[in-house]
């Protein structure tokens, strides 16, 4: 897990009322000092039953900012991409997201789907989010419920992938708001880039290099989660691994492709598996049905999922968005996480960790992966 190098600055910001207000004040100050022109932050929708990202130019509206919402209706990576895919923003914008959303943003930048110029990516220690379905049962009660668990670092009610997220404090953007290990009534603002340093300077914040208490806490948590993650992956593989279990697990799939549509790193204009490439004339299906006895329709459900894993698991940030929207409760995010850990592990690549790490598909080493090939034995 990447930590800010010592050259990067960090500072402590004191919290007068509550963290949310403190961050709002910080953003206002940033606009006043023209460190950035506008911000994109999560807000509660008027109906109060969900949350959305909002691009704010008017300071007064900032007051409605709601950081770390209990659910993730839209993955921040998708959102940023939609704003900047066709070119950089002319105004400087600060964006506050969860680490997995920041990582998706970085990943999309590598894929030319996001332009980071004039963006300041700010991440926050993330307690996880709860399944949308749970939240909607009783939004107010669940919100309270979420805040309590968040404060006690209790992840029972969070989504399964959040429970095994060992990167919930990973810094890959420009700045990170670290609440873990911070003294009561304060949080760390940790820079991870030149942009970040610049911001801290321009805002005239006094620097304080020592974030060890945060580091230690983060280390502890991520190590615990890592262990948990490994075990969960094992369990899951037992549960869904093997042809029969797998076909059972995906047997429910109705090919709605929701998982793909909400996936931040599934950036294709038209998914390969929705294109005509994978469609066949009817005689193909008939002859297959003949040789097999029967074939299932809609066809190629499994090809869709496995194909997505081949295409995207290297970039998967385990944000869980796909699982949230699966109408038939396939543990798709957990399956992707299990696979992503495998494929990314091949190249000790961590999706969205750093802009400098090319996605393994576009790089190679002359000597590597020798266990995958057989050359002159």
């Amino acid at each position: 897990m990447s930590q800010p190098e010592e050259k990067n600055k960090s500072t402590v910001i004191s919290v007068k009322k509550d963290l949310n207000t403190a961050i709002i004040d910080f953003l206002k100050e940033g606009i006043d000092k023209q460190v950035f022109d506008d911000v994109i932050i999560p807000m509660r929708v008027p109906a109060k039953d969900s949350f959305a990202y909002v691009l704010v130019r008017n300071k007064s509206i900032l007051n409605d900012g709601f950081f770390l919402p209990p659910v993730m209706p839209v993955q921040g990576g998708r959102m940023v991409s939609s704003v900047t895919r066709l070119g950089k923003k002319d105004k400087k914008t600060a964006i506050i997201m969860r680490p997995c959303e920041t990582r998706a943003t970085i990943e999309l930048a590598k894929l030319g789907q996001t332009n980071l110029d004039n963006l300041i990516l700010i991440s926050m220690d993330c307690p996880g989010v709860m399944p949308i379905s749970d939240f909607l049962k009783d939004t107010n009660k669940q919100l309270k419920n979420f805040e309590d668990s968040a404060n006690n670092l209790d992840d029972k009610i969070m989504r399964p992938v959040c429970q095994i997220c060992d990167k919930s404090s990973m810094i890959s953007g420009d700045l990170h708001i670290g609440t873990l290990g911070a003294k009561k009534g304060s949080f760390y603002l940790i820079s991870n880039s030149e942009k970040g340093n610049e911001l801290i300077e321009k805002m005239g914040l006094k620097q304080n290099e020592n974030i060890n208490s945060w580091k230690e806490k983060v280390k502890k948590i991520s190590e615990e989660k890592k262990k948990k993650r490994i075990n969960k992956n094992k369990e899951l593989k037992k549960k869904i691994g093997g042809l029969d279990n797998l076909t059972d697990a995906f047997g429910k799939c109705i090919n709605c492709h929701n998982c793909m549509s909400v996936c931040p790193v599934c950036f294709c204009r038209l998914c390969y598996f929705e294109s005509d490439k994978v469609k066949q004339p009817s005689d193909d299906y008939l002859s297959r049905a003949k040789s097999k006895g029967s074939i299932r329709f809609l066809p190629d459900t499994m090809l869709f999922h496995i194909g997505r894993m081949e295409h995207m698991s290297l970039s998967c940030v385990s944000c869980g968005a796909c699982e949230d929207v699966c109408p038939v409760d396939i543990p798709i995010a957990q399956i992707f996480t299990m696979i992503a850990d495998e494929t990314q592990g091949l190249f000790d690549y961590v999706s969205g960790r750093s802009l400098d790490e090319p996605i393994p598909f576009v790089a190679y080493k002359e000597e590597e992966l020798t266990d995958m090939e057989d050359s002159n034995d």
Partner: protein
Amino acid sequence: MESKIGVYICECGPNISEKVDIDKVIDAVKDLEGVAVVERYKLLCSEDGKKFLVEQIKKHGLTHLVIAACSPRDHEKTFREVCENAGINPFLFQLANIREQCAWITDDKDEATKKSIRLTKAAIRRVRYHTSLEKKEIEGNPDVLVIGGGIAGIETSLQLASPVRKVYLVEKTSSLGGLINTFEKIYPNMELGSDLIKQKNLEIEKNENIKVFTETEVEKVVGFLGNFEVTVKKTSQDNSSQDFNVGAIVLATGSRLFDPKLTPQYGYGKLDNVITSLEFEKMNLSGKISLKNGKSPATIAIINCVGRDKKGYCSEICCMYSLKFIRYLKEKISNIKVTNFYSDLCIPGKRQQKFYEETKGKNIDFVRSKDIEVNKKADKLEIKYKDENGSKKNLSADMVILAPAVEPTIDASKIAEITSISQGNGGFFAEEHEKLAPISTSTEGVYIAGCAHGPKNIFDSITQAEAASGKILTSLIPGRKIEPEIKVSHISESLCIGCKTCLTVCSYGAISFDEAKKISVVNEVICRGCGNCVAACPSGAANIKHFTFNQLYQEIMEAIQ
């Protein structure tokens, strides 16, 4: 129009007919969709066989042709020509390899037959999905840009320039000739360097088809073989740039010497009378070999392989020019004593050892040595070294000449970037293929000549210059169009989302990015049709002609029947 596929199975004498039950194959395929006719024939690649096929195609009005015979590596070309002669597109044809891949790999006739059926069916299924592909032809500009006015650049220009081919020779400095300008003589024949350069300069001046730009650098290159747009810029005044078009580019930017200051043990830059080989050439050319104090030296040490460890390669020419230096010295300073410190004597080829033998002699010592150190001692220089047996020795000399490694010029990386080629070992320009394509680069139409490619002597540089000319004279013929590869990749504008993955994996820079549309575009002239981009594209926007997903899918489906 509904497809009429003709299927022809070659007996290849006994080779197929005895190992494969051809009639069984015929039965198995005759009723497949689209199959209009199935026939067997003794030997389809024979003249009679080809005639037979043409007649059949015309007689049955076939739209597609499938032949089950030998390997496509043997006769695909042959049968494509048959198609052309019979008036169907040569790509509406598929060859099933039932000889090498069926008849010849098993003694079990039944097995061979079954597999032949599979391969033939696969070919039939595949051919249904074939599309006509047409030859493309594009205009090619025969003119040539030569970067670098050293001997390689000069030779290339002289050989290429003609009434039908203009050459633009661009040189950074104020005069042509490069390093040879500083050489009194050239080994092994020891003719005068000045003569060579004078003569070449004359030829260049006389040749009205060569336009020379001195004190000029190349700013920008866009395009591809036959169609490069070039921008050059005067080094002296700024913003005085000039544009022109060429069809090919030759990089003859030469080399420079490794800086001996980076190997302090030789005292270069700190001690008087420690000089580099190039400085010595100049001194020698000036007519007076002398020490700082004006006296002429009595003892000289030449140290080879300076910086070799750091660079990690042998610079090839140092041993030989050190011998040449000894000749200079013997000739100019009576009873001079020279000691040549070397590690391995590298004098390859038929002429060079003789030169060495004839240079040896009285007062000339060749010392195989390592761990050399040069210090000042009184008014002389002291060379400490380890000899072959590893025993420490030392020697005093008036002057030390260093033979530093040869390395690429400073602007090599800039030029590599401009022409979008890569730098290989030692930072020299990377050739397309070490053995078979030492002159060309991964950018078609960009060639390398001389020391820009790696350390080499004048003769080898000139050979490369001539070779570059050879390449250009064969690929860019005035009035002749360029015929690029037909089976190339294509990227669907409507599907591409512009992730640039294809662009990154392409070895040939055949894919560029359209900033306006935010999509990748294949330049079909550059593409060589490997299909790497197709497998790399997650959204299936990229596809390759004649090896499309569907064509291969058809083969797969038959393979697993």
